[in-house]
């Protein structure tokens, strides 16, 4: 008997090609990367239990559960609004599901979505221009500042989008994160590459989500 080996693949791992894509003559004005190694828990407050859920969140994660479309940095996790009285808890792979179960027992329903979503990072001075081709939201900094989040659709597919801290690099540009349904990820990745090709894309090596 051969012991089964459990090699994890992500929806992009078979097509992922770090390096340059699209226009190559200038510096890339767009960077994209798949972020791996995360855990994602959907937390949905039970009826009448939003306040206790919020309280539990403060106790377990040191931050209020976002009650409006925002992504909040918390202890060991990012709390992302995903709909009325519901949040995503995004954390590096570990035991976040257990942690969430303990935190929200009896007040919220949890579903593990760690494999149900693929996480992408999009940054660079042309990030907004590229996203404007696929996303109907107004991502102007006055409307969608760092920490803003949204549940919206790309290519008729639901996504969660939020804006992180601006890039520490020399361009200081906005950094966007996109959680997409895993079975759509490859298709969407191609769409994003096509949309950004005219700006020159630096596809960074896939790296684990660091929070």
């Amino acid at each position, binding site marked *: 008997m051969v012991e089964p080996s459990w090699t994890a693949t992500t929806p992009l791992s078979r097509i992922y090609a770090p390096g340059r894509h699209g226009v190559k003559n200038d510096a890339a004005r767009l960077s994209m990367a798949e972020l791996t190694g995360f855990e994602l828990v959907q937390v*949905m407050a039970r009826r009448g239990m*939003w306040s206790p859920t919020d309280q539990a969140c403060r106790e377990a994660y040191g931050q209020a559960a976002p009650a409006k*479309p925002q992504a909040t940095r918390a202890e060991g996790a990012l709390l992302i609004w995903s*709909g*009325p*009285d*519901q949040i995503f808890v995004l954390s590096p792979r570990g035991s976040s599901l257990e942690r969430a179960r303990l935190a929200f027992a009896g007040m919220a329903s949890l579903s593990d979505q760690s494999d149900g979503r693929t996480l992408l990072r999009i940054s660079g001075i042309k990030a907004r221009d590229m996203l404007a081709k696929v996303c109907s939201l107004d991502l102007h900094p006055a409307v969608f500042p760092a920490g803003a989040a949204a549940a919206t659709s790309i290519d008729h597919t*639901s996504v969660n989008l939020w804006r992180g801290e601006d890039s520490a690099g020399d361009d200081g540009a906005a950094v966007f994160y996109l959680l997409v349904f895993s079975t759509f990820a490859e298709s969407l990745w191609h769409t994003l590459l096509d949309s950004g090709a005219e700006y020159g894309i630096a596809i960074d090596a896939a790296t684990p989500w660091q929070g």
Partner: protein
Amino acid sequence: MRIACPFCGPRENSEFSYLGDAKPKRPGPDAGEDAVYEYVYLRDNVAGEMAELWYHGGGCRAWLQVRRNTVTHEILSVEPAAGAGAASVTP
């Protein structure tokens, strides 16, 4: 068109699905066939203000009650369905 989701903010129409008139209420278990027939099939064809059900399936997945003028397309109000989110509703 654009609908201002009370949870997400203004969004374009392709994020929403339309169900129809929000007025008919599902009859109770003992209401009888005529009441259910009316609930399922009979609709007013309103030219003017109408309460409609829309689903923000391309966003927060909330069901919404939208008051809309079917002639001018003006949207007068958008409210969450009674049971959106964790709202507590006594029957």
